[in-house]
């Protein structure tokens, strides 16, 4: 049960239930679709860039609490960051959930640390990383929908 509490922390439940920046974006510069065929989770991520900086980011879609909260916190985290910074956060976030160890110093990821517990639930890692993989595709201009499989 403690691992479950670790997974479903208040912040995750809050963002899962009330996702921020949860809307489409008509004047988006980039958008990308992410899909998890195993569970049917699907989200569209919208990006507005100004030069090298992320001016605005939003998402739409349907998913579990983990994937929704992860997308929601992603949008909160990235506004105002440069593309290089965003790439680094993507790398570090995915590393925390896949290869990282619980003893790693992840404090600089701020609120995103809330997802560290997902590592204990291997089948749920894809839920937490879906938005981030989709963001990667949006930033780097892939047109194909991103799939977790």
């Amino acid at each position, binding site marked *: *049960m403690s*691992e*479950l*509490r670790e*997974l*479903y922390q208040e912040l995750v*439940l809050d963002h*899962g*239930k009330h996702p921020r920046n949860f809307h489409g974006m008509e004047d988006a510069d980039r958008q990308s679709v992410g899909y998890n065929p*195993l*569970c*049917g*989770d*699907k989200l569209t991520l919208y990006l507005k860039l100004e030069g090298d900086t992320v001016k605005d980011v939003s998402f739409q879609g*349907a*998913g*579990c*609490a*983990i994937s*929704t909260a992860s997308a929601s916190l992603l949008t909160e985290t990235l506004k105002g960051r440069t593309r290089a910074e965003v790439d680094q956060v993507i790398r570090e976030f995915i590393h925390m959930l896949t290869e990282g160890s619980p003893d790693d110093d992840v404090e600089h990821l701020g609120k995103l640390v809330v997802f560290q517990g997902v590592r204990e*639930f291997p*089948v*749920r890692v894809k*839920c937490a990383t879906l938005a981030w993989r989709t963001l990667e595709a949006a930033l780097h201009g892939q047109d194909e929908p991103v799939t977790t499989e």
Partner: protein
Amino acid sequence: MQADQPTMDHGVETTPLDIARIRREFPILRRKVHGKPLVYLDNAATTQRPHDVVEGIARYSFRDNANVHRGVHELSQTATAHYEGVREKVRDFVGAEKTEEIVYVRGTTEAINLVAASYGGRHLNEGDEVLVTQLEHHSNIVPWQLICESRGAKLVAAPINDDGEVILDEFERLIGPKTKIVAFSHISNALGTINPVERMTEIAKSRGAVVLVDGAQATAHTKVDVRKIGCDFYTVSAHKMYGPMGIGALYGRKELLDAMPPYQGGGDMIRMVSFEKTLYSSVPHKFEAGTPNVEGVVGLGSAIDFITSLGLDRMAEHEHDLLAYATEVIGGRPEVRIVGTAREKASILSFLIDGVHPHDIGTILDGEGIAIRAGHHCAQPVMDRFGVPATIRASFAVYNTREEVDALARGLDKVMEIFG
């Protein structure tokens, strides 16, 4: 129904099954998951295996293993006897007339692919139609899509109503002169709906279509009689009926199988090979290229023995009791909405909880040792029909108990504690 008194029905004793004794035959049911006793409610995905099935396979492997149909030596003959003996057992189990009408396959998916490629490949022409229903598992959709695409034919789906039942009038209306093949499940894996297969077959046959019934979910829950159903093809999966994975059977009417081209080429399916011409074996061996899964077949035979020894009527009665109890206990909760409320249902309860995604529920229940399926159940058209991405599905087998339904209810309390 937990009848206290044994009753006599047509001279057959209908004493309720001793579930505690049955459970002892399944060692896996004694294990713990995350420190809690396993509550296995994912039987529509695969059932667990009793001692006799696993030991039967082990005995065969330790004593009798050899390749079939090849050797004059003792072991090969024994292995062949096992292999062909189970074929007769399957024939009897599904009520086929002739043993040659039973073809071994990897499972229902391969059975459907075989019929689609071999029968469909020969008989479907430009503009023809294949009719399925909106209830189908992807394995009863995609093989037809593939063959329709290559033959220029069209795949049509008969709609279902809000209860998850095929709308028979629509089904009938959609079978026209161009409809060559009609394929539908006996029992829906996503919702548990039991289709009126005899009536549906009658409608399709009266219009000249060939009928395939997908029995993946049916054979462990209801007595199958292919001649009574009247279908041309019927598919069986061992691992959904207490047997091993990777083995199943296709029943096909002999006249049809005889006229169909082979599905795969290789050893064991030929009579004579030269580079100019190959003569094929007769059915069923024409469709069994290569060294078969003999230990799987042995396991399938033991699974049929297991079911026969308990009696499908008594199994169905117990499972129906579990479904009724679960519908009341789980379905009665204010936060729960049941998806699939057909009048005729097998022991599958698909449901949703307002505002909580099925995957989150699956994870929390897993923490309680409860195995259920959260997802689209390989039946996305069904999910689309109800406008949901996924459901939670609890599916019951003969070894499940009312106490396990209570455990599921307590698991949902936990879900509400976290998400409520």
